[in-house]
């Protein structure tokens, strides 16, 4: 059963997976382009870290986009077929959902491994100035976790009903409304900041995406 699902998932999302794998492999290599020279001037350190930091912004973007697109393609055929195929299978729903989730997650391993391979290649070939170190495994691990978190979030959203979406939107609307009322009443209440801290700082769900994504650092 899992093999069939995996095959189906591959058919639906292979373009996304292949493109993300290529991007994931290329990104670390491109980010250390300037470091391939043998010159070890102190000026190079600043430039190298600058380049690595600028390119590093793309890792969480790639992870989020990949998680989103694969989660959408995981559920899209079911939604289109109004879940008739799933209901016709001799499986409880929770098992079906787990199989769906697992098949998507397995495919996500390819881009994560590509990031690892690209990072290892990039740090292996670049001339890293003294004092700096490459962190290929840590970066690839972080990328893998970020992809899976993004995938899980969007998978849950896609699996939800219109009512669930309504509840989520209602909650967001409620927060906005409370904030507006607080502002009008001149109350010292900043819900957006608090929410941002809750969501984007550890142990928030999206904390994995924030911070610096450095392939090479001190």
């Amino acid at each position, binding site marked *: 059963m899992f093999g069939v699902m995996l095959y189906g998932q591959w058919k639906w999302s292979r373009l996304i997976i292949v493109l993300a794998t290529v991007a994931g492999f290329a990104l670390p290599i491109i980010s250390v382009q300037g470091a391939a020279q043998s010159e070890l*001037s*102190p*000026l190079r*350190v*600043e430039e190298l*870290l600058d380049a690595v930091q600028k390119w590093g912004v793309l890792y969480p973007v790639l992870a989020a986009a990949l998680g989103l697109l694969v989660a959408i393609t995981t559920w899209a055929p079911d939604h289109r077929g*109004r*879940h008739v195929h*799933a*209901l016709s299978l001799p499986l409880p*729903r*929770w098992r079906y*959902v*787990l199989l769906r*989730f697992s098949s998507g997650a397995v495919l996500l391993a390819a881009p994560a491994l590509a990031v690892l391979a690209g990072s290892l290649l990039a740090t292996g070939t670049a001339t890293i*100035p*003294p*004092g*700096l*170190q490459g*962190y290929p495994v*840590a*970066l690839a*691990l*972080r990328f893998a*976790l*970020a992809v*899976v*978190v993004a995938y*899980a*979030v969007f*998978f*849950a959203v*896609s*699996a*939800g*009903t*219109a*009512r*669930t979406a309504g509840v989520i939107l209602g909650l967001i609307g409620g927060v906005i409304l409370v904030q507006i009322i607080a502002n009008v009443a001149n109350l010292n209440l900043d819900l957006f900041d608090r929410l941002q801290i809750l969501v984007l700082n*550890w*142990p928030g*769900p999206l*904390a*994995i995406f924030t*911070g*610096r994504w*450095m392939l090479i*650092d*001190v």
Partner: protein
Amino acid sequence: MCRSRWLLLLVLVVGGGQLRGQELERSPSGTPSVGSGEGLARLRARADSLAHEWRRANAFADLVDSLERARVIAAKDTIRVGALTIITNPSPLPLREAAARAWPIIDNFYGSEARSLAGRPYIIVAVDPDTTVERPAPRSGIAVLWDVDVASLTFLLLTSVPIAQPDATLRNWLGGGSVRPSLGPERERASVFVQLVTAPSQATRDCFLGDTGSCRDALDIGDSPDVVLRWYRSPEQRRAVVTRSLGGYLDRGPQQQPLQSCAAGSDSSCIELLQSIPRSAVQPLAGGARETLVNLALRLGGREAYHRLIASPDAPVSTRLAAAAGMSIDSLAARWRSEILGSRPTPVSLPPRGPWIALGWVAFFTACGLRSSRWRVS
């Protein structure tokens, strides 16, 4: 205090009908006439008069300050822990506890010099945090909300130790700072490690690689007169420093032309610019790096180290540091380097529990997906 001096001076000058020297002789164009010897003598007399009034204003301002100090001291509590003396108004502020925590650190750091604190009290004005009444800022002392906790108060006491300022040479070398106990030594050393690795200077690079002489240069304790050229040894480094770090500052007035020449590749223009600006503006390591060196010297030198550091203000900083540490400056620099290298910061990646937290969120959202009721609704 400076403000009150200026105010007093202004009052004296404006209301000073008795200041005969203010009767300026004007030329037809309205400017003072200085052409004759008599005019010059008159102007000199007026300058002397102004200087006299300035001294009077200073004296008045000092009087106001001392009265204010006396007023604050008069009706206040005095807390003594060791030589630490705190004068404050009655409040729930946990000053005694904070002082008990701060004193051992201060005593350990300044050694015998810490005794001088008995005559140099902290003046702390505890302020009610709940009041909405705006009170005038105290002229002397530090205003502190009285709901501040012990840790924050200890931090405050350690960052504002009222010990006598060191001499100008040492202060300037430190980048305007003073010699204070380190509040986060590991964090400060980690910050210096980053500077040592990333500063666009050959001296810092060579120091990192193990050349003690370069460490002396990087810390600006060498005796070389052309230290700026030792910091930035190649024309590329000099151009980079001038155009990238100082470009905004130099891009005006008479320095604009040499800046353009430097950017175009003229090394002599770059050198001219580097030597024309204060050395502190182009030091490859920030003042914090030198503070870590002073802290190390004081730690190694024992209780009398601070006393030895400030004992001979005319000696070069390197000699004073060596005396404070009780070892040669080369040994001190080597020790400093090894401490900095041992404080490599942990890379900004994931916190130790980060992966588990992320997996926890994955499990949570998957469970949310499992509980979805789309099939039942459909």
